[in-house]
């Protein structure tokens, strides 16, 4: 079944390779090289979508990424559904399934079109003026209705199984756009031997050249020149060419974001083949050769299916071998439409008339059309179209005065090809923060002063003709490469006048007529004028009030015409109206390709300790702490967390527990000034700490609030082993480096992160010494030799160790640091040695309970960035004699001495079985109604097995003075009475650390 509108020969398609596809369930045939749009047109299908607001039937308007109308959903399988794709960019493959959008029940008959009838009452911004009463109806009636009517396609519902890649790239010259200007630029730059990249969003390189049929370049037909040029570039190893590549963003310092479609165009992509790739290209110089976008004419009912841009129609004909209809009206304000008319005429499409709004169009193209016998109606405007789902006639009328037309005539046709001229694509230039300037002659904005190492070439800076584009491109390429090559292209081509028309054509069709400016968002000339009438004068306001230029095409075809209409309404020239901001992306970019490889396990690195696998084998349950996975508890059998933690806690207190503390941050502070540096950083005093001794260190920020803590051991006179919290490791090192490098560079001390050098095994419990005894060499574990808060070096299980005698549980405890590579071996040896002694592995949850029983704080749990050392009961740690330390001056601020500050206390519920909620609030008098007078909150709360009851830590206003007081914790079920106590619940004398 051959498609009725397909020509017999020519174009960039392969007629022998037939492809079957469906659109809204109907099966069609296309050929290799088609886009969905060209294939539908070949089958005579123009109606491809419905508009956003009025659900007007819409046909394809353009042939590329500027398309506002023909948006479809493409479905590969249940999980691979993509809404809002432009049919003009969807490459056809065998078996493609496409669906129209925003219509119900069908594209031909859409109930939503009733909004078209209501259109007099729902102008731009109508929703701001109504739906306010009754108040509740907004939530339940109006807003849901507005939402249901809005939106285009349906979001996918399944997780996207496709993969996306990333790529950083660098080059000396990046050329964006591979039309004649871009190709010439790449050619010139490539001669320098530097790295050149050439990208184009289309499936083929060539840009406008792909539809050129009659021009000669350097004596060769354009297509031959194109093929040869591409071959030359491809043969150069320093040239990287990427097609299907949307240069979507121009970022600071010449970084360009590009997305490349890798497999979407294939019928059967390889399993696992990535769908798209993000290129982040840093270019020394950029050449923008992005071409120009054809401008529609603005006249009533210019949106009927069958109304196309003239150059797009020419592309369909010459590149895809597709005729837009049998008999067309060519409506224009620009010479290029004559080229389209001539090509149509040659292909056998009847030209009902060329209707030119300009009074005296002249020039070679116009003459050629006349010579070919085509009817040219000079000084005529197209004033409307007839037809519903497809245009079947056009009204035309002579322009008799500015804004006025004479007698209407009707021409029958099945297509209207229109052209108002071309608008240079200054999107990327503008994104780069270059300033555009208004060009009086061309009546358009052109690139002005550059802000980056960049230059524009070809149609995107108003050099429209083929010869001009080639010459301009070549010069730009040479300039960008700083390589003085020249070439003068010999071009034989008929060129027209580059100037066109901007704004709306005059008509006599009355108030009700809708002349569309922004097709996709259904913005008409009337909407723009209404906005002006309502006082909106800034183009930014008009944009936002009418939504013009805010659809998925970002106004590619509409922005300049909108300015034209507003200029008329405000009686101000266009350049005085201003321009809205061009923003990335140039065309829409898939979320997935921006998210790239960061998904699942690659979302963020998963950091694990040397002992991690052992814990996995034991069935540990893990929690995320910054990037780390930490074992939270080790359930046995069917135990839940509560039961496991209870058991683990009791084992530690009775026998011994083993805990993986490897994630703690570690910093080696080394150098003759190490103690001085520590003095300045930490609140504690370090000078007198003996070698082989440890101290619990507190670090404040300069604003006086506690930011981190950890045990610090003195390894040698000039060497400290500093530990930090797991989450704080990088922050603390960064803070120390900051002071060291920028405030005290004279200090002879250096910092090295050793977090991952050491695996850290905490052994806590009365039997810890007994278990360790047989494993160490050269280490005296006796309390006399290794007292609480001291450290020693020696060997364990044959490997070197830094052995700390410290306790975060209140029991006799050791922290065994061994080189990470040996961590698991040593752990297992200790584990084996501990078996006869009831050694139990425990996780972070038990660790938290044990320390809470002892009243030890956790940074980030008891503190929240607003607690001073004194607030959390650590005044004892302050080195009183020190002149200064980070945070000291801030602690002298008035608020820091406020007796109402929250202070760390213990809370005991009057009912010992009740475990308070962490985060629960505290009030003094019971029975309050909101807003209550809040005195503090519960920071930690657990069932304590060893105490046989619940315990909690809390930050309470003036808390230390409230010991013994009864306070209340308001809960939805009622207040819970609590007694304020010391935060140390267990072994307050601290006898147990001695074993």
């Amino acid at each position: 079944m051959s498609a009725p509108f397909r020509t017999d020969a020519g174009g960039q398609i392969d007629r022998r390779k037939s492809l079957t596809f469906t659109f809204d369930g109907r099966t069609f045939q296309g050929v290799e090289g088609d886009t969905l749009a060209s294939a539908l047109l070949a089958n005579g299908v123009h109606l491809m979508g419905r508009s956003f607001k009025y659900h007007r039937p819409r046909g394809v308007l353009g042939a590329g990424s500027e398309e506002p109308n023909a948006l479809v959903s493409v479905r590969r399988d249940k999980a691979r559904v993509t809404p809002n794709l432009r049919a003009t960019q969807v490459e056809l493959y065998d078996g493609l399934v496409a669906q129209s959008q925003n219509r119900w029940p069908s594209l031909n008959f859409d109930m939503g079109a009733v909004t078209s009838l209501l259109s007099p009452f729902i102008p731009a911004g109508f929703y701001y003026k109504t739906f306010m009463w009754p108040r509740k109806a907004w939530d339940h009636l109006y807003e849901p209705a507005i939402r249901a009517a809005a939106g285009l396609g349906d979001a996918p519902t399944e997780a996207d199984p496709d993969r996306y890649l990333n790529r950083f790239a660098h080059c000396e010259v990046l050329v964006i756009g591979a039309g004649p200007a871009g190709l010439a630029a790449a050619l010139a730059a490539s001669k320098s031997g530097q790295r050149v990249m050439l990208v184009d969003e289309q499936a083929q390189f060539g840009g406008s050249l792909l539809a050129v049929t009659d021009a000669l370049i350097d004596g060769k037909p354009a297509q031959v020149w194109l093929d040869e040029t591409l071959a030359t570039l491809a043969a150069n190893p320093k040239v990287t060419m990427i097609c299907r590549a949307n240069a979507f963003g121009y970022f600071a310092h010449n970084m360009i974001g590009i997305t490349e479609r890798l497999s979407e165009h294939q019928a059967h992509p390889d399993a696992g083949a990535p769908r798209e790739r993000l290129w982040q290209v840093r270019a020394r110089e950029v050449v923008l050769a992005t071409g120009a976008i054809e401008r529609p004419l603005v006249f009533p009912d210019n949106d009927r299916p069958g109304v196309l841009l003239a150059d797009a129609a020419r592309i369909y004909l010459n590149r895809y071998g597709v005729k837009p209809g049998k008999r067309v009206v060519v409506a224009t304000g620009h010479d290029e439409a004559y080229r389209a008319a001539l090509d149509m005429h040659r292909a056998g499409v009847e030209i009902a008339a060329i209707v030119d709004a300009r009074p005296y169009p002249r020039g070679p193209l116009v003459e050629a059309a006349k010579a070919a016998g085509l009817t040219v109606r000079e000084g005529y405007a197209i004033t409307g179209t007839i037809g519903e789902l497809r245009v079947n006639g056009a009204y035309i009328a002579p322009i008799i005065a500015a804004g006025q037309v004479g007698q209407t005539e009707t021409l029958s046709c099945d297509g209207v090809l229109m052209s108002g001229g071309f608008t240079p694509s200054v999107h990327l230039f503008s994104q780069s923060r270059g300033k555009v300037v208004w060009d009086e002659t061309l009546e358009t904005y052109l690139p002005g002063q550059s802000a980056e190492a960049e230059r524009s070439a070809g149609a995107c800076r108003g050099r429209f003709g083929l010869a001009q584009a080639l010459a301009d491109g070549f010069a730009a390429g040479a300039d960008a490469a700083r390589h003085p090559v020249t070439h003068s292209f010999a071009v034989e081509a008929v060129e027209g006048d580059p100037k066109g028309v901007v704004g709306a054509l005059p008509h006599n069709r009355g108030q009700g007529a809708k002349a569309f400016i922004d097709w996709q968002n259904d913005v008409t000339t009337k909407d723009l004028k209404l906005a002006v009438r309502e006082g909106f004068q800034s183009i930014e306001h008009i944009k936002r009030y009418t939504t013009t230029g805010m659809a998925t095409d970002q106004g590619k075809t509409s922005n300049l015409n909108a300015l034209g209409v507003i200029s008329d309404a405000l009686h101000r020239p266009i350049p005085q109206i201003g321009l809205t901001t061009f923003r990335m992306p140039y065309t829409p970019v898939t979320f997935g390709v921006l998210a790239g490889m960061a998904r699942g396990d690659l979302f963020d690195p998963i950091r694990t300790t040397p002992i991690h696998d052992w814990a996995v084998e034991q069935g540990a349950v893990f929690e995320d702490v910054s990037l780390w996975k930490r074992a939270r508890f080790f359930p046995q059998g069917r135990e839940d967390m509560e039961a496991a933690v209870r058991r683990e806690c009791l084992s530690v207190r009775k026998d011994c527990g083993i805990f993986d503390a490897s994630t703690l941050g570690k910093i080696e502070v080394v150098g003759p000034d190490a103690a001085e540096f520590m003095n300045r950083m930490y609140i504690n005093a370090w000078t007198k700490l003996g070698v082989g001794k440890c101290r619990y260190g507190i670090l404040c920020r300069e604003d006086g609030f506690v930011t981190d803590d950890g045990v610090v051991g003195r390894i040698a006179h000039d060497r400290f082993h500093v530990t930090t919290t797991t989450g704080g490791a990088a922050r603390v090192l960064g803070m120390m480096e900051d002071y060291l490098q920028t405030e005290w560079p004279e200090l002879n001390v250096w910092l090295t992160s050793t977090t991952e050098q050491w695996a850290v095994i905490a052994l806590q419990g009365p039997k810890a010494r007994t278990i360790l005894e047989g494993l160490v060499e050269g280490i005296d574990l006796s309390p006399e030799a290794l007292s609480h808060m001291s450290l020693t070096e020696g060997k364990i299980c044959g490997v070197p160790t830094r052995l700390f005698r410290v306790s975060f549980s209140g029991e006799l405890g050791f922290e065994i640091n061994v080189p990470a590579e040996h961590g698991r071996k040593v752990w297992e040896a200790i584990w084996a040695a501990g078996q006869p002694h009831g050694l139990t592995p425990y996780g972070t949850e038990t660790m938290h309970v044990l320390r809470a029983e002892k009243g030890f704080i956790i940074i980030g749990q008891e503190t929240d960035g607003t607690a001073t050392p004194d607030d959390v009961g650590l005044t004892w740690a302050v080195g009183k004699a020190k002149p200064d330390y980070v945070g000291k001056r801030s602690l002298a601020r008035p608020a820091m001495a406020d007796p109402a500050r929250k202070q760390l206390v213990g809370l005991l519920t009057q009912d010992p079985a009740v475990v308070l909620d962490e985060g629960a609030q505290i009030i003094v008098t019971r029975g309050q109604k909101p807003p209550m007078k809040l005195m503090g909150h519960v920071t930690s709360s657990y069932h304590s097995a060893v105490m046989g009851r619940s315990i909690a830590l809390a930050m309470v206003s003036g808390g230390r003075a409230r010991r013994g007081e009864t306070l209340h914790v308001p809960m939805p079920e009622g207040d819970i009475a609590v007694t304020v106590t010391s935060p140390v619940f267990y072994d307050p004398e601290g006898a147990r650390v001695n074993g």
Partner: protein
Amino acid sequence: MADLMTNAPSMARHVLRGRLEALLAAEGALGFALPREACRSASLNDAHALWLGPDEWLILSAPEAGLGDRLEGAMGAHPHSLVEVTDRQVGLVVSGIEAEAVLSVGCPLDLDQAAFPIGMCTRTVLSKAEIVLWRTGPETFHLEVWRSFAAYLRAFLTASAVVPVAD
């Protein structure tokens, strides 16, 4: 993939920092000058000094050679810091015709030989991990990464090498 990525042979690692006298003394023990040019390495037999910062070098050496002790001994009382980090990180060798392209999936540096010649080394990032990247041959890179990031790095590189990236 197996040939794209291999584990580097085991080696001893030290971070060397210090004032000039200490550095000169260290050079005596090393038998070669510490590279003073940014992002360059110097080697003698199995010992390598990688410039990481203006007063910071990563010293790689054969595991049993005892270089750390010799360095410490040589620098004596001159202000310095020598910290062993042998176990802190692991070495990974990425090599082959696609090495540059695969690394460029996650590394934002220009890895062209003209910009990143043999012998160049630097801390940088590879996707979400910090690495030390050291070019040891036209198509060979030695990566040093903190050990807990190694699994991520391997998985990332494996995922990066799925399509031919010979561009």
